[in-house]
């Protein structure tokens, strides 16, 4: 917590809106670009508020180390990593940490539900997710980026995955928490939904919500995940309007990013 103020800042403006001027059920600006890396089988850049996340998929390829491989299916390995320069303030540290290992694990497990790995026995599908710039909600943005990258690679999947966080700020449920709201709010619940049937593939809870609030949070999250899914689909389709060309528009600004 070095560098950040120790006491809780106000999380709402005087007009009752959130710090960045959003209403409680509004997403931050989101834009996605697919096929941004030359050598990856599939890749995606997600710019979501102040988050910038790059995901690259390699494989199915030979599984190294060999003792990880399975004769029944491909192993899916997601690696979430924060770049040393990603942080706006103190959040995040490069290299393996307890936090990044946890996120790598939960993201891998979310995707194990949708990837049809049985087609590629004795191989590995690697998904590298790098946080280039972080604000609140990097794991949701990471899942969203990884789903686009996997689809772009043509890995067979039963479904796309879209994730969004729902939290509680100053006693009210709020969608897609920013860093301040995440740090100082009462609760943060990142949720990943399967886009076809709305199944929950990841649900983590920090802080507490009542049962009613969880029901409400799920409804809010599901509606928002559909919006995220529409942007994911659009990103994948746009690859083919630019003739499969590879472009990495790191200059995408959150202001230029489109929402809904």
């Amino acid at each position, binding site marked *: 917590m070095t560098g950040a103020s120790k006491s809780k800042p106000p999380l709402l403006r005087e007009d009752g809106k959130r710090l960045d001027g959003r209403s409680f059920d509004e997403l931050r600006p989101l834009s996605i670009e697919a096929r941004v890396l030359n050598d990856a*089988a599939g890749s995606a850049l997600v710019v979501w508020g102040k988050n910038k996340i790059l995901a690259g998929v390699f494989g199915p390829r030979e599984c190294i180390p060999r003792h990880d491989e399975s004769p029944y299916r491909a192993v899916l390995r997601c690696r979430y990593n924060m770049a040393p320069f990603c942080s706006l303030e103190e959040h995040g540290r490069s290299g393996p940490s307890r936090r990044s290992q946890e996120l790598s694990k939960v993201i891998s497990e979310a995707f194990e539900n*949708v990837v*049809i790995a049985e*087609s590629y026995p004795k191989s590995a599908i690697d998904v590298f997710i790098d946080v280039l710039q972080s604000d609140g909600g990097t794991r949701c943005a990471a899942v969203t980026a990884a789903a686009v990258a996997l*689809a772009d690679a*043509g890995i067979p999947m039963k479904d796309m995955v879209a994730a969004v966080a729902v939290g509680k700020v100053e006693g009210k449920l709020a969608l897609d928490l920013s860093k301040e709201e995440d740090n100082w709010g009462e609760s943060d619940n990142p949720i990943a939904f399967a886009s076809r049937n709305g199944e929950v593939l990841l649900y983590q809870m920090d802080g507490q919500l009542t049962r009613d609030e969880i029901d409400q949070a799920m409804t809010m999250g599901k509606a928002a995940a559909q919006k995220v899914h529409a942007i994911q*689909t659009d990103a994948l389709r746009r690859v083919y309007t630019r003739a*499969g060309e590879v472009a990495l528009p790191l200059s995408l600004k959150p202001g230029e990013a489109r929402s809904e």
Partner: protein
Amino acid sequence: MSKIVVPGEVVSDKPERMAYTFSDGQKTYATALSLLNEEGKLVPLEGPYEPIVEDVVVGYVTDIRFTGYNVELGEPFSGFLSSRDSRATFRLGSIVQARVINVDEVKSIDLADARGLEGGWLEHISPVKVPRLIGKRNSMINTIAQMTGCNLVVGRNGYVFVSFAGNHSLAIEAIRMVEAQAHTTGLTDRVAALLREKAGAKNMNAQAGMAGAQVNMAGMPTSQMARGQDDNSQM
């Protein structure tokens, strides 16, 4: 009008069995990023190679053992060519064309009828775009082979052998163009136009004129050979 579908998107309102889809008993959904055409058929846009018996594949030797050769076929697959199924001998790195004779449950691939390919190199394209590169009744690959004078051998696994004889770099440019624009229509004509323009320009650049013509002439017999092989690749 064909439409791009993403994994999990509905492709049919009743359960159907077709490639690159799955069904939950009520509807049919796509599993891969693909093009859904008017007839309701899915053509995948990306994806790894799915080995099938009788495929003609192209790869290179990565290991020589007493019993045979390991042949790299593009990740995640490598094939095994038993010495019993092949008369030819190869060296490490030799480029070979072979036929898949068996694929087992862990997708180990057995190869036979191997033939060495010399005097060229391997290009790799996305395996799902191989049918596009071959074209209807070999139209695309014949166009490229004829116009560049190159010997081309296309493997189902996405490796393409391109001979140094002929206009090598132009052939590669055309192959890359097919890969990038595989989802568009009228591609054969556009590739032909590109080849005409570039090949024509080259002949004009060579002031002597005759020199360029001779290269093409020398290239002709090889392109004839190439067509014979392409018939194989189509099987």
